[in-house]
């Protein structure tokens, strides 16, 4: 295999500006892949880069293949990229599983300890065996093989072991300086070994001149918890489920210092009813779950709707149906979130498009829940939820608190006993609300149809009044925007996506534009109230609409057909193998259908 240094920067013989470096480490689950990925990504982040990550892991605890990919760029991205320039393989499976992804001229570093290691032919890849385990053993323990690998990588990228030191200190200093030191030694040895034996180097993208110190390296789930915390949420009732458990960990971590309560309940039904109770009582409360949990919560979502209790539920979507692929991503709960639960209630469904929006949307969800007194579902997904990336910061001052139509004690004092009409038939559909503890605010919230005081009724006129009142409340919805458009005023091709696919669609659309296609990109941020007004004018202009989503039936496309129309111009771009889209997949599909 001829070694052609730096080959992958060359295109048509011209040296290209490096904009991307993608790195991956893989091995068996339980082998420390995650921490290896973390050290690399966080260290590059600290060097000022923008990093986007993607973790592949399986629904078993040990064994099975796992990997951690890091894309390093100069500018902000929210996708981990199609390319792969560096792969560290701790086992043969990692080579087999990931080799196809390697870019031309990529570097593959694998542990010399792999028995009969085989590297496929036919690709210009620098396959370099390094005795990672052996060097780690020499340095004190085989578990430090990831440090050895990091050292080698530092060498590949012309970085210094010291660039990775701050991470080690953060992580291990509580365990004593000797741990930090021995890890540094292992890293240095990996570095030295590489420098001595391997002449291939790859270039990093230009390092941003100025590092913005507000930048964060954070996952969607972490941002979601912080959003709730910023909103004043201090009650979390939750049942563990991948990929939503991390949202709970945020509360476990911060509530003790902020004065909140985390309750790990017995199941998701308890969780949502707990949240209903706490919200009724006047606190801001949240539960996070994934598809199976949402299915279990659907009865109670109807209760929140009819009792006009604003609640916030986060659905970190994963691959369904049923238990499905529990460690894989999908956007297949659109129908469940929009339509699950018998009967009819108004509800709000938000789909944050990136990690920052996980924060801002979750924070705003509490305002919406209180303003509109209805369930609010924040639908993120495993991809965005469990993978960290660089964002520009989380601005607490942008989070405000609105409690909607809470009545004052004075107002209640001015009423006669029994005169407070919690469910008064008011024009905007949103009735005044009193909280337990407020004198004279007595009312009953219930799952039955009820009158203005909240008492069970079967009277037709009151029933219709209450149904109409509830239906009206979202008519003049103001809050999270429905969708954001980037592109020409009169796009010939309109690509529509929602949620976390914004970054990858953007890149595919940019490529299409590069080829002269008149294409625009609309990314939906809210499923209910459905953003008909944002979609309709663009859809009407476009010749083709390609609805791009990670599910198999085109659930968003179906909604567009239902709310807007355009049956004859809508094409699907779908993926449902558990992985997020690649840029190429979207690019190819759009080219295919336009």
């Amino acid at each position, binding site marked *: 295999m001829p070694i052609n240094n730096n080959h992958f920067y060359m295109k048509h013989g011209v040296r290209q500006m490096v904009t991307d470096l993608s790195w991956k480490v893989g091995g068996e689950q339980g082998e420390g892949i995650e921490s290896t990925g973390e050290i690399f990504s966080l260290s590059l982040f600290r060097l000022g880069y923008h990093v986007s990550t993607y973790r592949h892991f399986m629904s078993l605890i040990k064994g099975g293949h796992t990997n951690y990919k890091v894309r390093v760029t100069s500018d902000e991205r929210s996708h981990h990229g199609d390319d792969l320039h560096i792969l560290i393989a701790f086992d043969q499976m990692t080579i087999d599983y990931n080799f196809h992804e390697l870019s031309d001229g990529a570097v593959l570093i694998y542990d010399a300890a792999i028995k009969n290691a085989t590297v496929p032919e036919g690709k210009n890849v620098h396959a370099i065996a390094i005795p990672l385990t052996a060097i780690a053993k020499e340095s004190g323990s085989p578990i430090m093989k990831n440090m050895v690998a990091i050292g080698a990588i530092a060498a590949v990228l012309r970085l210094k072991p010291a660039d990775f030191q701050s991470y080690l200190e953060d992580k291990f200093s509580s365990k004593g300086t000797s741990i930090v030191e021995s890890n540094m030694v292992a890293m240095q040895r990996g570095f030295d070994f590489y420098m001595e034996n391997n002449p291939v180097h790859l270039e990093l993208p230009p390092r941003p001149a100025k590092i913005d110190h507000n930048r964060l390296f954070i996952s969607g789930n972490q941002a979601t918890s912080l959003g709730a915390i910023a909103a004043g949420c201090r009650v979390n009732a939750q049942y563990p489920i991948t990929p939503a458990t991390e949202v709970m960990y945020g509360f476990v971590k*911060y509530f003790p*210092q902020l004065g909140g309560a985390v309750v790990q309940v017995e199941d998701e039904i308890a969780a949502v009813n707990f949240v209903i*109770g706490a919200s009724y009582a006047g606190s*801001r409360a949240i539960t996070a779950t994934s598809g199976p949990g949402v299915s279990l919560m659907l009865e109670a979502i109807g209760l929140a709707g009819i009792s006009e209790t604003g609640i916030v539920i986060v659905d970190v979507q994963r691959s369904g149906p049923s238990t499905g692929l529990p460690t894989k991503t999908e956007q297949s709960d659109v129908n469940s979130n929009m339509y699950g639960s018998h009967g009819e209630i108004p509800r709000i469904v938000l789909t944050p498009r990136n990690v920052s929006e996980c924060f801002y949307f979750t924070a705003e969800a509490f305002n919406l829940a209180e303003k509109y007194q209805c369930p609010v579902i924040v639908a993120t997904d495993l991809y965005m939820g469990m993978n960290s990336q660089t964002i520009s910061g989380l601005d607490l001052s942008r989070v405000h608190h609105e409690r909607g139509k809470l009545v004052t004690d004075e107002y209640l004092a001015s009423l006669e006993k029994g005169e407070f009409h919690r469910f008064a038939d008011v024009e905007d559909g949103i009735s005044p609300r009193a909280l337990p503890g407020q004198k004279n605010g*007595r009312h009953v919230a219930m799952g039955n149809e009820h009158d203005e005081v909240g008492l069970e009724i079967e009277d037709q006129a009151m029933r219709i009044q209450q149904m109409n009142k509830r239906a009206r409340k979202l008519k003049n919805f103001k809050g999270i925007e429905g969708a954001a458009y980037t592109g020409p005023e009169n796009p010939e091709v309109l690509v529509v996506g929602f949620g976390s696919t914004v970054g990858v669609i953007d890149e595919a659309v940019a490529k299409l534009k590069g080829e002269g296609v008149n294409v625009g990109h609309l990314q939906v941020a809210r499923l209910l109230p459905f953003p008909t007004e944002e979609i309709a004018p663009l859809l009407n202009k476009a010749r083709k609409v390609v609805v791009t989503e990670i599910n198999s039936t085109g659930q968003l496309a179906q909604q567009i057909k239902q709310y807007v129309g355009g049956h004859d111009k809508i094409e699907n771009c779908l993926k449902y193998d558990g992985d997020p889209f690649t840029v190429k997949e979207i690019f190819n599909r759009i080219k295919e259908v336009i």
Partner: protein
Amino acid sequence: MATIADFRAEKATWCPGCGDYTVLAALQKAAVNRGLEPEDMVVVSGVGCSGKISQHFGSYGFHSLHGRSIPTAQGVKIANRDLTVVASGGDGDGYGIGLGHFIHAVRRNTDITYIVMDNHIYGLTTGQTSPTSDPGFKTKTAPAGAVEEPIHPLHLAIIQGCGYVAQGYSGNLGQLVELIEGGMEHKGFSLINVYSPCVTYNKVNTYDWYKQGIKDVKQIEGYDNTDKYAALKLIEESEELTTGLLYKNDRPSFDQTLYKYPDAPITSSDWTINPDTWNKILDQYK
């Protein structure tokens, strides 16, 4: 000070003679006796005839889903620990569909009072077998008689460490008031199972039937209601017909053990976050 009238709401709609009237009256009296105000209480109920109690009682109320009064009530309490929170419902609601929540609330020891109107039947759905129906009891769904072992709610509660396990009877208002007051007083989860006859669908476990079998634990000399095994045995041997406070202990309640649970109600917490605190939090993602 509030009076009974303050805890009255709309006219109750139960069948004339239904045991649930007594439970409502007892709850009203207990609230008055404990000096509560209507705004300081939330009565959460499930779905069933019994579930209507949250409408009929004059405090804040939440008529929740079938089987879910306990999680809802716990949510209310955790959010505002200053409220007196009563969860309530029927035997089907609490020991059938809601059984898991009941036992988990016992172990969690949330500070709520749980009142079950146990009529051994599904009333509101017009007469099917309930989890406390006696073996052989004939209903619309088991015309040949129930075959399952009934749920033993008092036993289950005791075994899972419930700190206040009582049984009342709609034929004895005075005792019931006392038991409910005690339950509210008790710090932690308290269970008050009330034999509340369904005069319409249960023609076996009637007032007369109970009158013959029921015995007040106070009549048992030397009974030690802190002795778990004594309680279990007494309840079993009396075919669960003993009333009164049958078992108690002083295990710390959930709010007392929950890590750094604030002393003031969460509903009154300050939502603003000190910028310093915020920055320190964000530093962890840098």
